[in-house]
């Protein structure tokens, strides 16, 4: 899988870290990268269903480019949203749709990407991709 340059850089940064706690700390810091959906705008339409935490995403097009806004009550989930934001915001929808969720495994953040009810990242990723598809179809 070829990733956008900004994501490749992030993957390498994460791979350079051996300590899992330190890696998670880096994900926590990524929570600041999201375009935040204010809590008052959280709704069933933005909710990521099946997440253990309260997680919300909204995708729109800004001048034909993807603009993902998001928020979560779990810092780790919002950190993953921040990484996804870096990966796709400003991309053409077709390019964003090429992204595989496997990058989270390559970064050493998640062991499993199965779309189970407890895998907030996968559910969030799938919802974002579904919304992008909805915008271009």
């Amino acid at each position, binding site marked *: 899988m070829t990733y956008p340059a900004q994501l490749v850089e992030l993957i390498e940064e994460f791979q350079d870290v051996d*300590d899992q706690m330190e890696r998670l700390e880096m994900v926590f810091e990524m929570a600041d990268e999201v375009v935040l959906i204010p809590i008052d705008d959280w709704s069933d339409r933005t909710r990521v269903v099946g997440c*253990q935490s309260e997680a919300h995403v909204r995708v729109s097009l800004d001048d034909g480019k993807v603009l993902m806004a998001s928020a979560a009550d779990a810092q*780790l989930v919002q950190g993953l949203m921040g990484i996804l934001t870096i990966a796709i915001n400003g991309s053409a929808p077709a390019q964003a749709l090429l992204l595989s969720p496997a990058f989270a495994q390559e970064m050493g953040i998640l062991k499993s990407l199965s779309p189970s009810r407890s895998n907030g990242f996968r559910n969030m990723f799938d919802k974002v991709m579904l919304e992008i598809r909805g915008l271009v179809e």
Partner: protein
Amino acid sequence: MALRDDFPILQRMVHGHPLVYLDNAATTQKPQVVIDAMNDYYTQSNANVHRAVHTLAGEATDGYEGCRTRLKTWFNAERAILTSGTTEAINLVAHAWGRANLVKDDAIVLTEMEHHSDIVPWQMLAEERGIEVRYVPVLDDFTLDMDVYAASLEGAKLVCVVHTSNVLGVRNPLEDIIRLGHEAGAKVLIDAAQGVPHDRIDFEAFGADFMAFSAHKMCGPTGIGALLVRPEVFEEMEPFMGGGDMIETVTIEGSTYQTNEHKFEAGTPRIAEAIGWDAAFGWMESLDLKQEHKRMLEIARYTAAELRALGMTVYGRHDDADSAVVSFLHPTLHSEDLAHLLDAGGYAVRTGHHCAQPLLHRLGISSTVRASFYLYNTMEEAERFIAQVKIILERFV
């Protein structure tokens, strides 16, 4: 601790740290004897049970039925139906007894403390049959409202109660629940998934009509469990799943059924799992479970007290008969974040609603972190766990 040497998985490292496994209320680890017993079956005796006359089939049958015999001895029960676990055992009661004995406007009494596996089957049956489902509330001290329970029994045909809450660790006043249920003319089902790992129950003396539980929460394999049934109630059950092994004769006009437990075990059963479970009982036989329970509860009490001192809310009371489960929440650090950070240090805990959403709703929360202790856990592990929580709070809060 010599007992730990029996569990090969406890030697493994997670993220470069020794595994500290504190997710025992979800499933327990397996001693080497269980792993060996299942491996021996597949390498030496693999065959289908009951029908064939060859040597391997005899060994497989002896192994499978040996588990049933062990269950009957361990629990002093006359009827032990082997199922895939607690969930299937409860569903079996709903289908085999419920459908044959419950009609429109009958009532079933549940509690807010139940696991989803003791709620959903009854909701499904209630919808199908027009049955009323009543729920006994949980009080602020994490116990059941027994006054409401007593009042809810009028006209009830069945009571279904969890032995020990998988979230709170609270052991319910089962003797009173069973007695009052029977006085009201109701049958009583106990979901003992979290009870039997800590408490060697005498089913006959206990007095419940049904008791459901799983092997994997007591050092046995996943995929197998049991339903104990009082003999007179067993006779009120109709076959649920049809197929091989549960019949006496089959003609094109119709079938007749076995009269023993096989009537409810259609198809090829879980042979290796039964053999593994039998080995787990054999391993546990040498332990003083009462003494072990006291020891585990001390670990849980220490953990709960330390977590409270760190500003956590602990959901549970840890009375003498309760299980060694500690559910807790930090006021700001999300349960999922805390669990990931603990995992980074090799600590396996559970987060989420623990398949008990009505209980969590009652508590006004959507998830907890749950540390649950079992036979191989030590006080030293609990002390390291608390030290790790402190490190996380200092670094991330």
